């Protein structure tokens, strides 16, 4: 699952995921454009439209029963109700392997001790 959210909501998303007991998460900073209005900035005589906005991209691999919980957590953490809140893409995962143990698929994405 891929979630693209506002950087200022990233901490709220992490908190929501933690509460939903989703433990395996990667995040990265990205720049993108999702239909929001451009921000205008001025540096001395130079005025620019910032076509790309800072976003945070979460990548989360979960087993089937956790899909809806994870989507709900992303929604609750990332939503402000204004244009620019981001997207969630749920995509099928062909195969997953936990490097340490060699466990595959569901076993690989189930948190240790869960």
């Amino acid at each position, binding site marked *: 699952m891929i979630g693209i959210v506002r950087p200022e909501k990233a901490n709220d998303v992490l908190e929501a995921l933690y509460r939903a007991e989703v433990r395996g998460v990667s995040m990265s900073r990205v720049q993108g454009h999702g239909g929001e209005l*451009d921000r205008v900035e001025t540096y001395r005589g130079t005025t620019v439209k910032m076509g790309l906005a800072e976003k945070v991209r979460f990548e989360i691999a979960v087993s089937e029963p956790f899909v809806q919980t994870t989507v709900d957590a992303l929604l609750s953490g990332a939503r402000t109700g204004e244009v620019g809140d981001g997207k969630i893409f749920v995509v099928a995962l062909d195969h997953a392997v936990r490097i340490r143990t060699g466990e595959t698929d569901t076993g690989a994405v189930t948190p240790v001790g869960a």
Partner: protein
Amino acid sequence: MIGLSAVPLAAQVNAGDTAWMLAATALVLMMTPALGLFYAGLIRAKNTLNTFMMCLGAIAVATVMWAAIGYSLAFDDGNGFIGGFGYAFLNGVDFTPRDGTTIPHLLFMAFQATFCIITVALVSGAVVERMRFGPFLIFAALWSVLVYSVLAHWGFGGGWLADKGTLDFAGGVPVEMGSGFSALAAALVVGARKDYGRQALLPHNAVYVLLGAGLLWFGWFGFNGGSGFSTGNPGVLAFTNTLLTPACTLLAWFILDLLRGRRITAIGAATAIIVGCVGITPAGGFVSPGWAMALGVLAALPSYAIIVWRPRTRVDETLDVLAAHGIAGFTGILFIGFFAQVSWNGTSDGLLYGNASQLGDQALAAIATPAYAFAATYLLLRAIALFTPLRGSEREEALGMDIVHHGEEAYASGEGAILVSPEEGAEAEVLVADPG
């Protein structure tokens, strides 16, 4: 010639003193951008420019207010509480020596202006990352007169504390306690940042903090060393003590850091430099070099304790102006009451050298200044809040003050930036995801 010599000679402008005070004034002015660097490093990246701009804003409004009425209310003869309007708009402030000094009155005014400026800038540390820029400028303008000028009159300008005999070499009363206790009031009125206590709010650039602290220390040699208004002994003593005291505070801070966390921290060291410089500010020209070193160690203790304790409270006095300035200034003011020595300062002894009344005079300043600074700042901000909101929406705070108030970013990458003509830009002034 005989007739002339019977008339008491008016004090003359002294070239050496004037040369040093010109340099000292420039050194003190540099402290405000240095403070901007120090503060900007301590906050999150999205508020870098706004935090720095509060310091530059202080230079703008405090200088104008100072020239208009601030200097007059601080340094003209008036009553014990506040000065008069005799020097308003710098009327009569010219090349003749300022009373009690051998430097031109105009230069004396400029030197004192730089003190007013940095004190206003210091208070901003309590409200960074959330206070709106416009209301801050209004606050800064009014505060520089209603609080700074009043306290400067008390301590320096012939007001009631100076009359009583309170010793304050370079501004423990107006600058340090004035800013520190005002900062506490400002933090209470403006309120905590929305993320305070929920998220870790970390310094975004520790190197800015260290560089800012280093430049502040450098500038402080003008601040304390210039407060004798001459190249004479008090200034030389204060200058040297400005080296000795912060060095001792640094060492004491290292030890406190080791005891508490087993590691000596860099941001702790930067803070220690400030605390040491503040501690010696009131005492610089009054205590021996030995006692100045003792003060460095002593001043670390209460400030360190409050810096550790304050973030556990709900008071978001963001950059700990109270601990670093208010409390260290308080320590320095009281320290004079114990350890001042006539043999070093030519003015007065402290309790340890047999003059208990000096401690009483110092204690008076240490009670009256915080009370006035806190109360006046609290009421002033409450009054401004009746006319305009002091802070923006949660959304604006989340986006960051740089984009919202200045339309710039400190670390703009330029990726995805499309060049527009200024005319077009003016029309298209919209923020990301503007709900309108």
